[in-house]
């Protein structure tokens, strides 16, 4: 394989991972149209850090115990076999998702009673608080393994093309099924009008919490996959500005459309990374800056031309909801006439 093809592969993997995270957030935005829910990026971080920390920590603690199982580099033991590693990796990713979901549950429980914009702002606050704590996790919190703002190194790089794709498909299918179920409808109803939703027998707080937690679960999974892809993690990567990226992508793709989110996240990564490569050869030092000059301009133009996003609320192929209306209904005999 020549270098360029390999480059594409790397980019593609990045795009997959991006997609994975973003889907988690899309879910959210569908409900909170109009609010930047930034904390999903934090949860993404939490997911990432938790697997990372667990990997490093457990590695250190269990090393002596596991040596017979792990074997040495020359003679790998049973746990060090690629299969065993992958199994552990899959469990770790799912655990990270669960953990992120739990954190968001605890945070969401009190905060979800806030009005929509205030909720968004509280999550922004949450993002920053968690990020700050992460940066200080080695000095203030008792997690020296996480190395605080200096970042964790040496996380096993276990994410493969296959596993990223697997998780992405899983998330997409779960999302699709959720959105087109009664629960999905109730979440949308809450977004549209809380009071009316209450009057329809929908537990508004519950629905909010539900969507929040599901979104966080996906974000946690995304984070874990990312952690095991990049092999290095630092909280600085997940600051509140970076938290806008998923938001931008989701809006770009079209708020009501999963198809759009998927397309936009691939497009976004190719666009930004591709732009850097192209520019770098021509602009030298200023290339990274130019990239962030051109990128908002593109964004602006797109928003002005298609404010509803690339796909609006169009859904393609198997992402569409199931159709239960069998035959076109003809004008019925007005039933009530008989009652008079």
């Amino acid at each position, binding site marked *: 394989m020549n270098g360029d093809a390999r480059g594409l592969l790397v980019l593609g993997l990045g795009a997959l991972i991006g997609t994975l995270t973003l889907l988690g957030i899309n879910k959210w935005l569908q409900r909170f149209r109009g609010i930047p829910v930034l904390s999903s990026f934090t949860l993404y971080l939490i997911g990432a850090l938790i697997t990372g920390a667990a990997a490093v920590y457990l590695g250190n603690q269990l090393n002596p115990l596991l040596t017979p199982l792990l074997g040495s580099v020359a003679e790998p033991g049973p746990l060090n076999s690629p299969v065993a590693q992958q199994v552990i990796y899959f469990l770790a990713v799912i655990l990270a998702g669960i953990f992120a979901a739990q954190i968001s549950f605890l945070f969401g429980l009190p*905060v979800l009673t806030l009005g929509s914009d205030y909720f968004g702002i509280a999550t922004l606050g949450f993002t920053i608080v968690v990020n700050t704590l992460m940066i200080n996790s080695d000095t203030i919190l008792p997690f020296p393994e996480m190395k605080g703002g200096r970042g964790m190194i040496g996380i096993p790089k276990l994410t493969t093309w296959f596993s990223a794709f697997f998780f992405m498909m899983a998330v997409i299918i779960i999302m699709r099924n959720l959105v087109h179920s009664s629960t999905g409808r109730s979440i949308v109803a809450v977004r549209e009008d809380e009071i009316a939703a209450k009057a329809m027998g929908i537990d508004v707080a519950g629905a909010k919490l539900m969507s929040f937690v599901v979104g966080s679960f996906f974000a946690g999974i995304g984070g874990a996959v990312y952690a095991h892809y990049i092999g290095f993690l630092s909280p600085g990567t997940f600051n509140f500005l970076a938290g806008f990226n998923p938001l931008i992508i989701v809006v770009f793709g079209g708020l009501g459309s999963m198809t759009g989110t998927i397309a936009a996240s691939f497009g976004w990564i190719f666009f930004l990374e591709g732009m850097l490569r192209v520019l770098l050869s021509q602009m030298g030092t200023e290339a990274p800056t130019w990239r962030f000059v051109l990128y908002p301009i593109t964004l602006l133009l797109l928003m002005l031309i298609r404010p509803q996003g690339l796909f609006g609320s169009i859904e393609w192929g198997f992402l569409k909801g199931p159709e239960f209306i069998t035959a076109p209904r003809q004008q019925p005999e007005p039933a009530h006439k008989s009652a008079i």
Partner: protein
Amino acid sequence: MKNPTLFAQIFISGLQLGFVYAMIALGYTMVYGIVKLINFAHGDVFMVGAFASYYAVAKYRLHQWPASAFPGINPTLSVLIGSITVILLSMLVCVILAITIERVAYKPLRDAPRISALITAIGVSFFLEFYGALNFVFSPRFIPYERPFEVVAWYIKNGIHLVMPGQQAPENSVTFSNIFLIIIGVSVLIQLFLQYLVRRTKIGIAMRACSYDRQAARLMGIDVDRVISFTFAVGAAFAGAGGVLYAIAYSLIWTQLGILPGLKAFVAAVLGGIGSIPGALVGALIMGQAEAMTMGYISTPMRDAVAFTILIIVLLLRPTGIFGEPEKEKA
């Protein structure tokens, strides 16, 4: 308290920070109030204000125009007039910038989903930061800022005394500077002006009317676009003034200097109750003190955690901020 003078010193720096935040927070509050848009570019307008004054002073020496136009003028008066000119010029630059942004980027999206406008605002913010960072625009670096007037400091110890240039204030004294006084003065004036504008003048009431229902406002004969532009302009003018004072106070500028103060000011506005003008001030002062106290007594890296924890707690206790009116909705 171990050391009361240290506390007082920290309190003063928190106060100064708080009043700077207040100047930015007002713009956020006003714009949010009227178009329900978190104008993320506002912090960058603040930055442009700082840069405008930098060019006016360092490149064009505008702060010295009275002295060169009328030789023999009282030097204090000259500095005063010159500095005011610089501030007004920066405000003007910011106003023009903000109106342009509003026209080009936000107005076409007025009927689009709110989130589209928000994304656009983030885009504009990125653009200003990075376009400014190009070498032929401003610079990617930190630039030392030349002040239009000199810092004069006083210390309090058995009365108020002047600190001689180049010398240290005596031990156990609390110092403050003319910049501190100016920031507070300007900030309070702006506050009063706005309060009057919004509560008492026709355009102020029209701003609130537009904020509630634009269609209905148009039926009253209100030129909604003008009112919105006006709101952006007023907010930008204050941010511009804030930018100049911030640059004078910390005397180093770069193109991303608006991000964090912008964010903090926005949070301050929320803390105080977004839409409320006294709320913006109170929220900003709380933010300023929270940060200063954390930096002084806990540790600097923790200050955002503390400030934002306060935000979350306040929101839990008063879901619409300290001065915010409860979200009234008749079912």
